[in-house]
């Protein structure tokens, strides 16, 4: 698509989200100027203040961040799907439902809009009863997970989808660490297969540098309590580290500095349900054979649903995600 003299038309939009993904896109440092040689940004309301009419002429690549939780979000998703050749979910919200998706744990409520409408205030878009991931509303071509997506994967996606192998820009990481399809796309300029997730193939533990000893802890620690910031596996120290259930790709950034993984890359492909995996992983660190002791220990773990499905409740929780087909 990046034929000489014709730039790729790029659109960027955030639905219900915090816009950190858009910040992340701006955070590719000097690569931004490189991008300007290949892409023409036709629509980016957050940065350029572009109106919606700008997408009418068609878009080659649309980067969509944020969950679908209002009527305006749904319209934006439909419009960008209709006008774009390639639609990319960027960030955990668009990819899995993200933090706004935790609203689904509460019973569906009436839209809280009436009160503001009557008081002569600006009309807010009506909320939908359930927050959804982008792929639950429209067809999505590629996924870049993360909260926000890490610089290198975001840049890998940009190189693969926008520059198509024509960028001389150096990669700040080894191509070998990326999944084969992504690495091939970047180096060859051929689009990766539809549905490619710009992340690793295993769990975060695969790239985590901490020492796993299969020791039992029998405690529940929260990150404010004292533990070894370096060295031993965080899960084995009693922290709720979700690396074991989470898709690799970040390179173990958080666990490397002693922060337990919160699962922002979504579940690893081999896992059916991240919550079930975490129950299994955490229970394996218990050291008791006494039912009452175990019950007491379980009581010290709070908000399991909000923790295990923090970024993925609308789409990856087997019990709450809408049934397919």
């Amino acid at each position, binding site marked *: 698509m990046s034929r000489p003299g014709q730039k790729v038309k790029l659109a960027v939009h955030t639905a219900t989200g915090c816009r950190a993904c858009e910040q992340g896109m701006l955070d590719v440092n000097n690569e931004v100027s490189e991008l300007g040689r290949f892409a023409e940004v036709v629509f980016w309301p957050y940065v350029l203040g572009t109106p919606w009419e700008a997408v009418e002429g068609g878009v080659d690549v649309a980067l969509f961040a944020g969950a679908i939780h209002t009527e305006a979000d749904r319209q934006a998703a439909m419009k960008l799907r209709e006008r774009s050749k390639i639609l990319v979910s960027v960030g955990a919200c668009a990819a899995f439902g993200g933090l706004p998706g935790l609203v689904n744990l509460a019973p569906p409520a009436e839209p809280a809009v009436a009160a503001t409408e009557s008081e002569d205030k600006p009309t807010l878009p009506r909320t939908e009863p*359930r927050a959804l991931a982008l792929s639950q509303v429209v067809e999505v071509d590629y996924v870049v997970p993360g909260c926000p997506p890490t610089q290198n994967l975001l840049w890998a996606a940009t190189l693969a989808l926008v520059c198509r192998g024509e960028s001389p820009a150096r990669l700040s990481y080894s191509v070998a660490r990326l999944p084969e399809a992504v690495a091939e796309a970047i180096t060859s300029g051929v689009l990766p297969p539809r549905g490619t997730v710009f992340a690793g193939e295993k769990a975060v533990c695969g790239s985590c540098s901490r020492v796993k000893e299969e020791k039992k802890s029998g405690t529940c620690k929260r990150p404010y309590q004292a533990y070894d910031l370096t060295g031993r596996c965080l899960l084995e120290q009693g922290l709720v580290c979700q690396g074991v259930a989470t898709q690799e790709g970040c390179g173990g950034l958080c666990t490397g500095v002693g922060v337990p993984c919160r699962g922002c890359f979504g579940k690893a492909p081999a896992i059916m349900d991240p919550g079930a995996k975490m129950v299994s992983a955490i229970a*394996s660190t*218990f050291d008791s054979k006494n039912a009452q002791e175990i019950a007491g220990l379980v009581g010290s773990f709070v908000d399991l649903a909000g923790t295990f499905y923090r970024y993925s409740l609308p789409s990856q929780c087997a019990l709450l995600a809408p049934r397919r087909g």
Partner: protein
Amino acid sequence: MSDFEPQIIAFLCNWCTYVAADAAGVSRFIQKPNVRVIRMNCSGMVDPSYIIKAFASGADGVLVGGCWPGDCHYISGNIKAMRRAPLLQKLLGELGMEELRFRLKWIAASEPGPYQKTINEMTEEIRKLGPYKRSAA
């Protein structure tokens, strides 16, 4: 709700509860026909994802049956089940599921009576709860 027939998936340990289920059948104990038995080598190999998948696929209740603590054919498999169950129970509760729908029971090979009782009680209790509705389905 009168014509609702609950579907219960039972993951039974090959060495204890499955034998009890077999003995209950051989002894002609009257049991509710709502249980689908899946024979496992050990209650310790029933991964929480099996249980969640059962519910996600339409089960109204799940029973995990294992040997009494100390009697495990694999020494400590049932202890693993015992450690997982309360944590899973808590997660299921937070996801809006009633506590009675998931149970872990110790039933030895020599206890076909208690097996029959468990099955019949569980079926009736879940019949009262009604079908398991996934809240976003």
